[in-house]
């Protein structure tokens, strides 16, 4: 007989938890924060993606799939959510109240337990090996859907650390479809025209640059020059929206709601980029590889993710943008149930969770399950290939009909032996 009591006996009651919080969400919502630039994109209702990447591996047990009072469950309680019978970790109080807006897939089982192989493999959808390097999801969307009517770069990346153009994400699609990264949430250092340069001088300088580029490109690979020109041109359009990066002008209340930390502020910039019309916005957080002192570290990590994620969902919903934006929050894997000697959890691709929301997603669904101990998936398992099929379908792209064209070689856009995860799509 298990001497431990059942988790739900000690979890906060749903009513207790939700009580008193009902008005808070609505009160905190956007209200007047929508910038004028949003209007055009919202009217178009073009499909967009917000891809939140928690680099290093978020623990499923301290977030979406808690197993309190079990051998590997860790120290935290679970709390009830807006969905009856569904609990999340006590470290996610805000998302607990938004569970009806998202879909959890708790039955992910993927192939890699290392970062170096896992990150690209996951973000490229782990297709069958055909001797080519597949594009990251952002690059794939940029190629398959192109920029929105805004003309802004279709694949942008808000991240801590260095920025610049990241062509390697694009794989065989060619560098044009790489990511334009805003390191530390800022545009590239030479993005802004110096004050000493007049608009006329700037135009003349750009004409000269184009002429030089043309001559330079003649004997060289077409794709690289195309990428250079493309990025420069789209960046010029972005220049007109440079207010996005000046967070000092954002209302303090808005910044507070997202959280005065890197992830919060980057999520806020990410939302502004979506509003402005970027097709695919990746927001990155580092430092989730908690092999040591995991439980203390997780308190602030998960709490800050919870805050930023809840805020962005709230705002996307308030503007109506959630209806046409696919939101994905994930890592390259989960973390081991086993707790190591450094009070850490290691890498665990065997049973973990991905959170989805927005266009085409069955909000309020919890798909798949892990066993009572949280060690392995119980029932059907899903790999990242299934997830790519599901994401493409949510964006209105049929992976069974649409193919990449790799210089005349047709290639499937998602693993050709996998399909959509049942129940995820609305």
């Amino acid at each position: 007989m298990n001497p431990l009591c059942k988790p739900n006996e000690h979890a906060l009651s749903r009513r207790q938890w939700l009580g008193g919080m009902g008005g808070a969400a609505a009160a905190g919502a956007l209200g007047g924060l929508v910038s004028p630039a949003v209007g055009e994109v919202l009217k178009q209702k073009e499909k967009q993606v917000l891809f939140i990447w928690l680099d290093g591996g978020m623990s499923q047990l301290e977030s979406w799939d808690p197993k309190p009072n079990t051998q590997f469950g860790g120290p935290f309680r679970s709390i009830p959510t807006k969905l009856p019978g569904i609990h999340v970790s006590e470290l996610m109080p805000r998302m607990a109240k938004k569970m009806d807006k998202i879909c959890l897939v708790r039955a992910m089982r993927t192939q890699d337990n290392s970062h170096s192989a896992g990150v690209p493999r996951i973000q490229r959808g782990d297709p069958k090996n055909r001797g080519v390097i597949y594009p990251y999801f952002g690059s794939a969307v940029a190629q398959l859907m192109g920029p929105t009517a805004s003309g802004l770069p279709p694949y942008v990346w808000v991240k801590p650390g260095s920025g610049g153009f990241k062509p390697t994400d694009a794989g065989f699609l060619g560098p044009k479809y790489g990511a334009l990264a805003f390191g530390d949430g800022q545009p590239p250092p030479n993005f802004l025209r110096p004050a000493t340069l007049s608009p006329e001088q700037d135009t003349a300088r750009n004409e000269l640059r184009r002429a030089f580029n043309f001559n330079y490109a003649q004997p060289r690979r077409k794709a690289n020059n195309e990428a250079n020109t493309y990025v420069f041109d789209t960046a010029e359009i972005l220049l007109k929206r440079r207010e996005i990066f000046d967070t000092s002008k954002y209302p303090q209340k808005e910044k507070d709601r997202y959280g005065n930390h890197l992830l919060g502020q980057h999520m806020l910039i990410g939302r502004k980029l979506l509003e402005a019309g970027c097709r695919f916005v990746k927001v990155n957080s580092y430092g989730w590889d908690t092999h040591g002192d995991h439980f203390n570290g997780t308190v602030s990590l998960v709490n800050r993710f919870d805050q930023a994620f809840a805020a962005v969902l709230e705002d996307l919903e308030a503007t109506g943008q959630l209806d046409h934006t696919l939101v994905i929050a994930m890592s390259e894997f989960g973390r081991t149930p086993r707790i190591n000697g450094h009070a850490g959890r290691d890498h665990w691709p065997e049973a973990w969770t991905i959170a989805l929301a927005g266009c085409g997603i069955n909000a309020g669904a919890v798909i798949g399950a892990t066993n009572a101990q949280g060690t392995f998936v119980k029932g059907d398992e899903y790999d990242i290939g299934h997830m790519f099929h599901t994401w493409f379908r949510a964006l209105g792209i049929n992976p069974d009909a649409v193919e990449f064209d790799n210089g005349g070689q047709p290639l499937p856009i998602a693993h050709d032996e996998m399909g959509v995860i049942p129940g995820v799509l609305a």
Partner: protein
Amino acid sequence: MADPKKEPKQLQILESERQLLCTRFSPDGTHLIAGGMDAQVHRWHRAEVAPEKEGDEKKIEWQPLPNLAGHHAWVGAMGFHPKAKHIFTGDSWGQLRCTDYEGQKLKVHWSQKTAHDGWLRQIAVSKKHLATVGRDGAVRLWSHAGKRIAEWKGAEEIFAVTFQPDGQRVVFGDAKGVVRVWNFTTKIIEREFTLNEFYKLARIQDVCGLTRLVFLEDGKTLLAVGCAPTDGGTMQGIPTLDWLDYATGKSTQRYQFGVENDVFITDVAWHPKGYLLCATSGVTGRGTTFFIRPGEKEPFYSSTKIANIHALALHPDHQHFTLTSTSRGSNGNGRRLDKEGNYSGNTSPVHVFELPA
């Protein structure tokens, strides 16, 4: 190489089925008590065992007793009643309990299921009171009978607590390394000082290094124990001891042991002969036991034989101590099954030592 005559002698290894978080000897020296990740309070009692050969001295062994149930999450906080044979235990869901620790039929004297909202981090006991701190940012003062007497609440999680030696003030330290002196009678924070080295913001992670606050014998010195963090994620940092002049809060001596991989001094005990026993837990496979005298620049003893030590307990006879460690090969990515094909957890062997004469 260490002088074997000065090496602590290992007497016994006590096995546990699950990982343990804290270990202490009862004040009368008859019991060894540990709090576990299995929501249990583990017990061993001191027993005299007949000698193997006639003429040999009787042997002392620590023998297991049934666990105490009743908690529902990690039991990481512990303290003993100053007179009765009762133990106070706290868990990570906020429950505080007082039970017998001796005998087979153990009475639960009282229980506060929500002593804290979430993780109850530490318990300190004085002659009249006990103080608890937790993730909810609260410090709570209780009578030994479990009646809540006073409370202070702040914004940060509180990790460490102790009583001033006269029992009139509670001294506690939070996640950001802020130490406060609380007069629970007037309910006023009388002093506070910040130990910056015990905190770092790494990306979006608060990396907190303070594990314990300990008054040394004279009461004039407050020892801050833990880690000076250098990075989050897989936490890195330098094991740190900070001797503070209690009157001013200023550091009089800081000792940093080892390298970034050594991370935490997890536990300490003051030996009446004038030195500190310290245990560290670093990245998996790293851990050191060292003894150091105040004012000296280096430990006079150190050993890396036992890794990832999460608790150190000094017996009231001051001749024996235990180190609660982690089973070997505790880490590893991905699916790693045992010989029977099971996914098993780690355990915490408790090593019993005798100090050299």
